């Protein structure tokens, strides 16, 4: 990796230095959301898969848990997004929205192009984030139609069930992928757990973000 071959005089930041990646609000929001997603995905599976329904029974309780944890997902998000606490989160959302030329190249080559210089997030993370936020809203909307169905015509109820089922399928894929990649890179996972990464990691994996945060423009062997 580039960072390990960087000569010692290249920059003022030692490779073992600690850089903040996610602030406390972001981490609390992330793990709160992760827990809620966990509950909603598991209870959803119990409601949906016959063998699990049969195993767990208690349909009323499972359904109540599913509905109210689902409704809590945007609430947790709104709290984190409030003007008072959510500065870092809003900034990251702006980052996730914008794709640079490097992001596009990274996406086209699925990360294999070593000349790509990334910012704080790679294009996969950006795509996943945009998908999950929108999909969560779609789930809250269609789930609400399923729960409070009286005012809706039958075709809309059937449509909502249809969308809810299929979106659940894709959310499962997205979340499992997210967890897979987190465990594949323990330092990235630590970034969300303790909030910090080493300068070495940042320089190697997210060079543009590293420069932006540390102001260190030292030579990077490419």
């Amino acid at each position, binding site marked *: 990796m580039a960072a390990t071959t960087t000569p010692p005089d290249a920059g003022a930041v030692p490779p073992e230095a600690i850089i903040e990646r996610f602030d406390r609000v972001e981490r609390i929001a992330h793990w709160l959301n992760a827990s809620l997603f966990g509950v909603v995905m598991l209870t959803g599976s119990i409601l949906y898969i016959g063998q699990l*329904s049969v195993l767990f029974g*208690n349909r009323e309780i499972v359904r109540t848990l599913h509905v109210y944890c689902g409704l809590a997902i945007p609430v947790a998000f709104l709290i984190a997004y409030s003007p008072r606490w959510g500065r870092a989160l809003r900034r990251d959302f702006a*980052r996730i929205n914008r*794709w640079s030329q490097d992001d596009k190249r990274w996406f086209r080559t699925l990360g294999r192009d070593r000349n790509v210089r990334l910012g704080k997030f790679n294009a996969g993370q950006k*795509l996943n984030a945009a998908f999950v936020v929108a999909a969560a809203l*779609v789930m809250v909307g269609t789930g609400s139609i399923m729960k409070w169905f009286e005012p809706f015509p*039958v075709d809309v109820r059937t449509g909502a069930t249809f969308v809810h089922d299929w979106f659940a399928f894709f959310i499962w894929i997205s979340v499992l992928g997210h967890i897979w990649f987190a465990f594949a890179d323990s330092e990235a996972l630590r970034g969300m757990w303790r909030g910090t990464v080493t300068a070495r990691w940042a320089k190697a994996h997210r060079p543009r973000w590293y420069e932006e945060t540390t102001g260190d423009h030292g030579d990077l062997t490419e």
Partner: protein
Amino acid sequence: MDGTPVGRRVFFGILGVGAVGVLWGAKAQDWLEKAVAPLVAKDGTGLSAFLPIGRFRIYTVTGDLPSKSHSEYSLKVGGLVDSPFTLTYEALRALPPTKMTKDFQCVTGWRVHEVKWQGVLLGDLLDRAGVKARAKAIRFKSFDGTYTESLTLSQARRKDVIVAYQMEGGDISAEHGGPVRLYVAPMYGYKSIKWLDTIELTDQVEPGYWEHYGYDVDGWVGRSNGRDDNAT
């Protein structure tokens, strides 16, 4: 911040897909069922059962899956009748069978097309017990110990209401309410009580389990619960 706002486009794109799906999902589902059902039927892995296409959802209201073997099972017919009786599973199977192929429609929206059912006409069992004059309705109980249902006497005597012991050409599995369940063809699924073991004639309709949670007692498909599905 520079760069293309791909994130925003993906976000609104997904919201759009969701909205279109809600509006057109019912049609898409019909189409999918016709297109994919033949493939699903040939799927040996069973994985396709997880796809949201033409499938039963298994509902139980108690903590576990009620189950009884054929030899443990018995059906009681009693209440306001002249001669109450109890049938073993074998005795029920020995009665003249009624077969029908009809849809199963759930009040929450899903529908399974053209399910093959076989059982004994409920009306035949009532005749055998001899219904007393002051009996007006029937109360059904499940051996799950919790679920109950009801029908009026005239509903119960319809030719498309059976005490079913076969589904899709085989024994009814425990998940689907076996060994014996009710199948009330013209009504929503919650009327077709699973794990049926007691049929009791009563002098008035006593609302069943889901009816205490607001479902209509007369659960006609397409004419109750604020729905307008095609009749089954």
